């Protein structure tokens, strides 16, 4: 599809206005970045971020509203704490914490948001290659989850 690192971005639907930036679920300027819109940055479960990295994504980031202005009052602060924790956990597993990012931009900060994502992607491009995905990415997730819990 493109030559950039595969990046998954979880973006709060109240924060950056993605309509002018997105095309077919990806950023128009960086097609290697897949955007998943979520109701609040606090909705993102850290295991999903870990999972995305484990399944072969080169980087994952979460975007919330500016700190202090979360529509749901605390979602972005909670998510920042969870991302910090997950970064420490990744470091123990020899995964570079730079592969995980937390951004905070408001409805109008489209250009600043794009610049931050570009910097994030460039940072990942500079890293040594990641470990190969621990499971075949073709396996559908729900079926895999069912097999794991007998």
């Amino acid at each position, binding site marked *: 599809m493109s030559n950039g690192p*595969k990046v998954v971005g979880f973006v709060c639907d109240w924060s950056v206005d993605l309509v002018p930036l997105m095309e*077919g679920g*990806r950023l128009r300027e960086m097609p290697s970045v897949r955007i*998943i819109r979520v*109701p609040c940055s606090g909705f993102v479960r850290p295991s999903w971020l870990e999972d995305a990295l484990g399944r072969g994504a080169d980087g994952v980031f979460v975007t919330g509203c500016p700190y202090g*202005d979360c*529509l*749901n009052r*605390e979602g972005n602060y909670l998510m920042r704490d969870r991302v910090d924790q997950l970064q420490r956990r990744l470091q123990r597993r020899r995964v570079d914490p730079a592969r995980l990012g937390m951004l905070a931009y408001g409805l109008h900060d489209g250009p600043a948001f794009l610049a931050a994502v570009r910097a994030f992607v460039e940072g990942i491009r500079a890293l040594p290659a990641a470990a190969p995905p621990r499971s075949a990415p073709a396996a559908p997730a729900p079926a895999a989850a069912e097999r794991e819990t007998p």
Partner: protein
Amino acid sequence: MSTGAGIAPSPPRSRYGRFMTGVLRGTLKLDVWINKVYPADYNPLYYTGGLSNLFLFILVLSGIFLFFYYEASLVEGFASVQYITLGVPYGGLIRGVHRYAADGFIVAVLLHLFRNWFTDRYLFSRDNPWISGMFLLIFGGFVGFTGYQLVWDERAQVLTAMFVGMLRSLPLIGDWLARVFIGGAGVSDGTLVRALFLHIGPASALYVMLWWHYLRLRHPKIWPPATWVLASVGLVFLLAGVIPATSGQPAAPAGRPASFPMDIFFLIPFWLLNYMSPFAVMVLLGALFTLGFAIPYIARREAPQEMSVRHAGVAQVIDGNCTGCELCFFDCPYNAIAMVPSPAPGLSRAAANRTWLAVVIESRCVECGICIGACPFEALELPKFLERDVQAQVLEAVRA
């Protein structure tokens, strides 16, 4: 909904929706501009509620001081306020603080109201803070008006006459209300006793309504950052020192002054009396507050189907997976999750070993999904945006 990939939400169709979207953009643009001046954590517009509470607290403290010296009677009312201003050490300063903190209070309250209206912070079950907030606004405005009465100078006298006229203009109950308000057929000593009670009673009631206002919030931002506390207190004292609060001429039983100094924060309804009949002003006030109460119910910026992932249904607990760890209970910003004793024996091993079960109080849930992010045991889901839907999008992203 299930993939959400590349679905561009159409702009709201109704005229109200388009207008409110424009206002939302304007509000957030103002934030961007202010955030260039301050670090985002100190943006005063993020703390309008805390600032209101701070000003209310200043009002209570200075009001207690003033209360010790005030005498509620026609003869002593004006004289005791003059004594506070000129005779009591620092009395004039405290009176000025009380006066300017009231202005700050009403400004902060109105900013709080418009900001939360314009940024959609009254949606779903957040109508409860909205309704209690409207009560706080009405009571706060009325307390400000009775405060002007207590000074009992010419302005107070005219205001009382105007308000009595407005009450009398109401059909059926008007005369009775006017008699109750001034304590008899005409103005007497009892009028100022009532004014004092109607100043302090509703002001105390504000704290009962604040309890209702905060009831569904976990960690409410009650105070602004310390720098803004210092700045606000300093500003109020500075104003009180530079522009002292003063009384007009003492009220005289026969006096009928034609004009008085206006106050744009509390006395706008009385200014309208220049142009409208008392009954029309009462109808206008009634219509404004009725509309205010109805805002969460009559019109939305976006129709529910336009909200996509932001309207994914009330969170649901998956009984078999819940371990009773209380993480969602601690993280929910709306106190919408309660921990209840787990019913025995339970559906699964996790259920058999837990003490507590998380339960979502549906009337408090705003569908934000923060509890889903808090739960490491896959025991919570938003019904219209499942974990499976997220995983499908992740897979699609890494496969390409």
